[in-house]
């Protein structure tokens, strides 16, 4: 028994089949590339940039914190410390400087201090008067030119002032990869700026450097 009955095979069916096969053949032929070449690169990699800085002494040694003791031994105090901030990553970064966590301690009172100062807690955080009597400046040196960008005391409420003045005055300090800047923190207090009220007082603070990636348009 035939698969297709003989009476079903008509002339129009045959014609339609021929048209379908013909169109398919033309379509296949037109989408086939006659020539083909393949190149394979074996060295293509995605590289993520790095952002990294180090803060060191001008001598190249690891940066150390500031320790100034025996204030009151002489008429006045003054001094300074310079840090070199190096961008050792592969991306440019924007530098910010700030003082965080300023803490003024009373550290109790001896008799001469108690005569002038009624706050005598031990440690008496926030009660000390030393910080408000120490004036500081921050100078940024970049590309051989220096500019003073911050003037503030070490009073507890001055922390935000350091950040604000840096943003306002540091003129968007961007350090390119491999570049560096110098930041100098100087302090002073003259003989008329303090007396017995600061005896035994201390002020502690953290110096914070942040290097933020500079993005296009950012």
């Amino acid at each position, binding site marked *: 028994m035939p698969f297709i009955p003989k009476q079903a095979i008509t002339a129009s069916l045959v014609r339609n089949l021929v048209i379908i096969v013909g169109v398919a053949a033309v379509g296949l032929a037109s989408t086939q590339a006659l020539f083909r070449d393949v190149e394979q690169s074996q060295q293509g990699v995605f590289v993520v*940039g*790095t*952002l*990294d*800085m*180090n*803060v060191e002494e001008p001598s190249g040694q690891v*940066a*150390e*914190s*500031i*320790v*100034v*003791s*025996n*204030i*009151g*031994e*002489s*008429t006045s105090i003054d001094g300074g410390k310079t*840090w070199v901030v190096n961008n050792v*990553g592969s*991306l440019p*970064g924007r530098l910010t400087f700030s003082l*965080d966590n300023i803490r003024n301690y009373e550290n109790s009172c*001896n*008799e*001469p*201090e108690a005569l002038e100062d009624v706050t005598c807690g031990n440690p008496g955080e926030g009660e000390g008067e*030393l*910080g408000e009597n*120490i004036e500081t400046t921050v100078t940024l040196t970049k590309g051989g030119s220096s500019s003073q960008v911050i003037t503030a005391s*070490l009073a507890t409420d001055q922390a935000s002032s350091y950040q604000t003045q840096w943003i306002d005055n540091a003129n968007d300090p961007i350090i390119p990869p491999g570049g560096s800047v110098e930041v100098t923190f100087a*302090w002073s207090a003259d*003989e008329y700026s*303090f*007396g*017995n009220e*600061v*005896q*035994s*007082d*201390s*002020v*502690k*603070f*953290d*110096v*914070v*450097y*942040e*290097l*933020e*990636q500079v*993005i296009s348009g*950012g």
Partner: protein
Amino acid sequence: MKNEKRSWFKLVFFGLVVLLASARFTDADFLDREDLADNIFEATTLDFANRDTANLTEKSLFFNIFGLQPTGFAVESVRIKKEGNLGFTYQVVVEQTLGNPALCQALQLRVMRNWQLVYEGSVMAFNYSGALIEENEWHDLVMSLGLPDDAPSDLANQNCGFNIYITTMSGEQGSPFTDQEVLTSQIQTGGWL
């Protein structure tokens, strides 16, 4: 049940909106931070005390004499003790606070330190200086106060009050810190012919 599902959907949708809105302001930049912690400025101390040479308690009352006679005298002592960190020089001076100036001038003072006489004369002219440098160093001053043999009778039944001021002086470096202690004295003479 349907309302509960809808509420959950709203909640999740709202959360997503908030998340996306806040994400707009976050940076995905790299950031490096270096902290130099515990920078410190600390002040020293300058302090001394007048102490009783027997029991070492603080002392502010010194001579307190009633009925003083010619040739009579009283003895007092004081320990000037350094109690702060800074060394210092000090000066001792006397000022009359009340009474008869002639009696105050007539009162004779002898001062010994380490049993060596360092002053002899009118109490009102007493002027002495010393230095306390080492930790917990002190000076013991022993003083006798009396009337001379030839004290005139018009000094009888008079009184004299004076203070002995012990004051730190700025050293070569000129510390802004100072301290002062006071010893208060009162003398009343008796009667004599």
